[in-house]
């Protein structure tokens, strides 16, 4: 089952930040493939959602970039800035709290 884009929309930035926290640097395609593999295809990030979010995070100073030439084309690697690392923990904690609240609201029993 692939989750709908509405569910993913609000969590995309948190997903990106968490991945970059675990990995030193990643490029766009790598992010989409890693998410797909880790979630066994349940979450498939679209390019139309991923790249705007990456650009927005970069312009906010949360991500920093470095570029490398791969043959004739240029590859942009993203990594967390110093403020980005602090924000990542905040976002993860916030989302965790949100999940608890939603679980309570929707009366979902936690998986054992």
């Amino acid at each position, binding site marked *: 089952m692939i989750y709908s884009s509405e569910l993913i929309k609000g969590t995309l930035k948190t997903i990106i930040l968490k991945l970059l926290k675990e990995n030193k640097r990643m490029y766009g395609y790598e992010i989409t493939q890693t998410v797909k593999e880790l979630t066994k295809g349940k979450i498939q990030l*679209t390019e139309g959602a991923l*790249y705007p979010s990456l*650009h927005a995070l970069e312009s*906010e100073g949360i991500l920093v970039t470095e570029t490398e030439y791969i*043959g004739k084309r*240029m590859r942009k690697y993203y990594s967390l800035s110093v403020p980005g690392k602090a924000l990542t923990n905040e976002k993860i904690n916030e989302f965790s709290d949100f999940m608890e609240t939603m679980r309570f609201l929707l009366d979902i029993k936690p998986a054992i």
Partner: protein
Amino acid sequence: MYCISDRQIDFILDDIRRNGIELEDLQLNLLDHVCCIIEQEFEGNGDFEQFYFSIRRRFYKTRLNEIEEETQSLLTFKHYYFMKKAMIISGVFSAFVLTLGIILKFLHLIGASACIVVGIGSFSLLFLPLMVTLRIREKQSVREKVLTLLGSLSAICVSLAILFKLQYWPGANMLGLVSIGILILLFLPVYFITGIRQPDAKVNTVVSSVLMITACGLFLSLARTPHSSLHLKRNQTAHYLRNEQLLKNERLTSNRLNPDAALIDSLCEGLKSVIIKQETGSQHPDWNVAVLSDDRSDVLNPNTPASEAVAELKQRISTYNRNVDAGHALPSAIPLFENNDDRTLPTLNDLVQIQLFLSQNQELK
């Protein structure tokens, strides 16, 4: 893994650009992404272009430049947080500075005027515009955006009108009337008509409208009409002209002024000419028509001949008063010297008074 050629890379990049992706960073990101997919999934024996177009189709719902539009939208949204912070900081700052200015005013301490100007100025020109920009962004319908804009514009005009009034700057009454006009003639009708149509908002709309009309009425009852302003200016001008006549009559019977007194008198005459010319456009206006106001005359604008003359006058009066007894001292604690208050009519009357003192002192010698 397929090895993509330089020519194919150029083809993909041209196509991305042709489809409306203008941000260079985004072009390069998409190019790399597409190339990665092709390298992983293309087997090399099919039609490259057809395969590329099928890949490209995955990137959007209706057209490729949706990605650029979404990127631009998020980049603009980034400014939202900055503007929100700036709005809060400017609001707190203006409230604090205005409060400080009012306290200093009541305690007759220095800095009151500056604090009040900065407080009201930052409220009207920083806080309110930022607030209206953010509010408009949050509103959905065009009607709500227009209402927000009109209401805020009126609020900006009212606070600026109050500032102009406090500082005796010209145009205060006009600004106040414009703000009331926007509120009563534009904002209120739109607000009332759209609010009254919604059953759940009907009572609130009526109550708010009554409050707004009453507030405007209270505000207007304090304001002078243009007619009464003109009447007041005519009376005040006549008062000044009577003082000038008194001076003229005094000069007919008094002795010639000594050199020091003559210099002070000449400085007073010079300043009066400058002020009258600024006010009426002529050094010798037709007093049947011309009127003087209570607005600032700008003779205290730094580095102008008039401000230098004011400084010299103050210094010469101080020297003169050291050589006479208290009963014959010239007025020196006038608002022009003490409070940087160069309003036209009070300044002219004070200058005439100085000249009258000079004439009477000469007569008594």
